[in-house]
């Protein structure tokens, strides 16, 4: 079936001879939308003729809030964007801030952030694969994968003290150095993961029902993926060979051996396959990194005022305490260049970029987030017409729409 982008503006579903069409409000509260998003579907029997997304139910003005919080405080807000992989957002945010300020991280911090970024990719793909299978009726895969997510929550807790919204990164480093206990937890997670992955792989990948529901559904061609600005697993499932970890290496990614997973299918099944294989590549990166974490300081030496001093300094010396307050206090902070920067990382969902405009003070003048969910959801009304109502959940699940990131 060749893919054609329907033009939303020209179809006349409101005309009199189309009276047999009926309208279905999908959401905003519906179990299969996972979060609060609303679709107004025009249906011909069970066939979708037109879909108009109505978003904004979770809009809470994150970008406006950024203008009133400093570069370290805002990390608590970016946490809440894509809450399935909160630390990936923090890493993207501080990646942009550090690029703005010209801070080069210590090797140890780069490795730890890389491990965490890959754990977050697993975190996100595990839930996404699990729930998109759950929406199609496969309950077991969801439970198996959620068990693995619990272990990642434990790892987050071990590193930062928080399971969910960790607020772990800081400008020029992270909150606490990791412990041996954390390293052991990551190791044991890696050891157990492949078996669970193989089990779910056996449950889904060659499952007749699952393939029938996903193969050839929601096809996105390579040209359209590029034209619609798709990135991440969705673009790679359509054959766009692009991964910022390889193309614009950041953190410690150049040190590791891993593959970029691409397919040409462009349908829901291809997106599922890309995510499944990316998980194995992530595990490979974590296994390489966890055995080779360099020794040394975790934070950049706080010579300038931008970086917070180590906690032990804060608690045990007056200089550290003064330095801490200099950075934290609202009328002090650190100077920034009067410049703008766009920096992006490969988040689990795609290119998560921040466009920061700094005005010299310690608060961003403007912090634009380029949310991958938002961009990917704009594709949805173009690929859904012609499919059945039951395919709506399959396509929604495979696009991995996180409403908190969508609306910010």
């Amino acid at each position, binding site marked *: 079936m060749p893919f054609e*982008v329907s033009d*939303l*503006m020209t179809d006349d579903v409101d005309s009199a001879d189309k009276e047999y069409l009926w309208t279905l409000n999908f959401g905003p509260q519906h179990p299969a939308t996972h979060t609060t998003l609303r679709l107004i579907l025009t249906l011909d029997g069970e066939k979708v003729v037109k879909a108009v997304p109505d*978003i*904004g139910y979770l*809009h809470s*003005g994150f*970008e*406006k*809030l950024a*203008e*009133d919080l400093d570069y370290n405080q805002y990390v608590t807000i970016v946490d809440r964007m894509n809450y399935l992989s909160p630390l990936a957002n923090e890493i993207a945010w501080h990646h942009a801030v550090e*690029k703005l300020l*010209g801070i080069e991280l210590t090797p140890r911090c780069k490795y730890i952030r890389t491990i965490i970024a890959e754990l977050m990719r697993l975190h996100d793909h595990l839930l996404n694969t699990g729930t998109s299978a759950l929406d199609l009726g496969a309950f077991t895969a969801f439970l198996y994968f959620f068990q693995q997510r619990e272990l990642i929550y434990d790892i987050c807790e071990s590193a930062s003290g928080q399971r969910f919204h960790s607020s772990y990164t800081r400008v020029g480093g992270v909150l606490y150095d990791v412990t041996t206990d954390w390293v052991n937890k990551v190791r044991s997670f890696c050891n157990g993961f492949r078996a669970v992955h193989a089990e779910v792989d056996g449950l889904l990948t060659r499952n007749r029902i699952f393939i029938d529901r996903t193969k050839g559904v929601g096809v996105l061609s390579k040209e*359209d993926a*590029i*034209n*619609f*600005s*798709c*990135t991440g697993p969705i673009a790679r499932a359509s054959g*766009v060979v*692009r991964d910022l970890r390889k*193309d*614009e290496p950041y953190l410690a990614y150049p040190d590791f051996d891993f593959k970029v997973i691409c397919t040409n299918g462009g349908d829901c099944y291809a997106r599922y396959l890309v995510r499944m294989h990316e998980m194995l590549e992530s595990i490979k990166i974590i296994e390489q990194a966890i055995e080779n974490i360099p020794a040394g300081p975790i934070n950049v030496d706080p010579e300038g005022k931008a970086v917070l001093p180590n906690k032990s300094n804060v608690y045990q010396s007056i200089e550290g305490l003064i330095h801490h307050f200099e950075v934290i206090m609202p009328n002090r902070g650190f100077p920034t260049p*009067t*410049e*703008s*920067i*766009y920096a*992006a990382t490969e988040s689990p969902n795609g*290119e998560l*970029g921040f*466009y920061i*405009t700094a*005005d*010299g003070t310690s608060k961003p*003048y*403007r912090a*634009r987030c*380029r949310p991958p969910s*938002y*961009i990917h*959801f*704009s594709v949805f009304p*173009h690929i859904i017409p012609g499919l059945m109502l039951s395919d709506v959940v399959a396509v929604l699940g495979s696009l991995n729409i996180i409403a908190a990131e969508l*609306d*910010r």
Partner: protein
Amino acid sequence: MSSAAPLLAEHFGADSLVWSQNRDNVRVNVGEDRVFEVLKCLKMLGGFDMLVDVTGVDELEYPDATDRFRVVYCLLNTETGERLIVLTYVNDPNPTLPSAYPLWKGADWMEREVFDMFGIRFTGHPDLRRILMPEEFTDYPLRKDYPLRGRGERHNFPVITRSES
């Protein structure tokens, strides 16, 4: 310097474009009347086939700013991985730009968000409605003259009671 510099200089003259660089971000500043032609040239001839982001910045309180709104187009060449940022400035009372939707379909929602947040109109956009804010909202929240706490809209939203619904 960007690989698109000779191309743009050939089509638009070297004097009309202001190039700048901050770390790895290469930026070109173009006038609002030529922004569509520049984007079209970059897409058709320069190979910048992906529009990564469109966003705005309200420069009302920005140091040494002369114009009101900065609109930022982040472009990407997916073959070479090269990035280019196209900047343009628009001003009150009626900030308007041509829509990039005919070039990139991805511009659809990005431009709607810029319209929603800053009130910049994009002519030629097929469906320029508010996207994140409710339709009855009248202000543009990311403008700098809009207060962080709002103007009391929250208390005045129409409430639908159970008996009316």
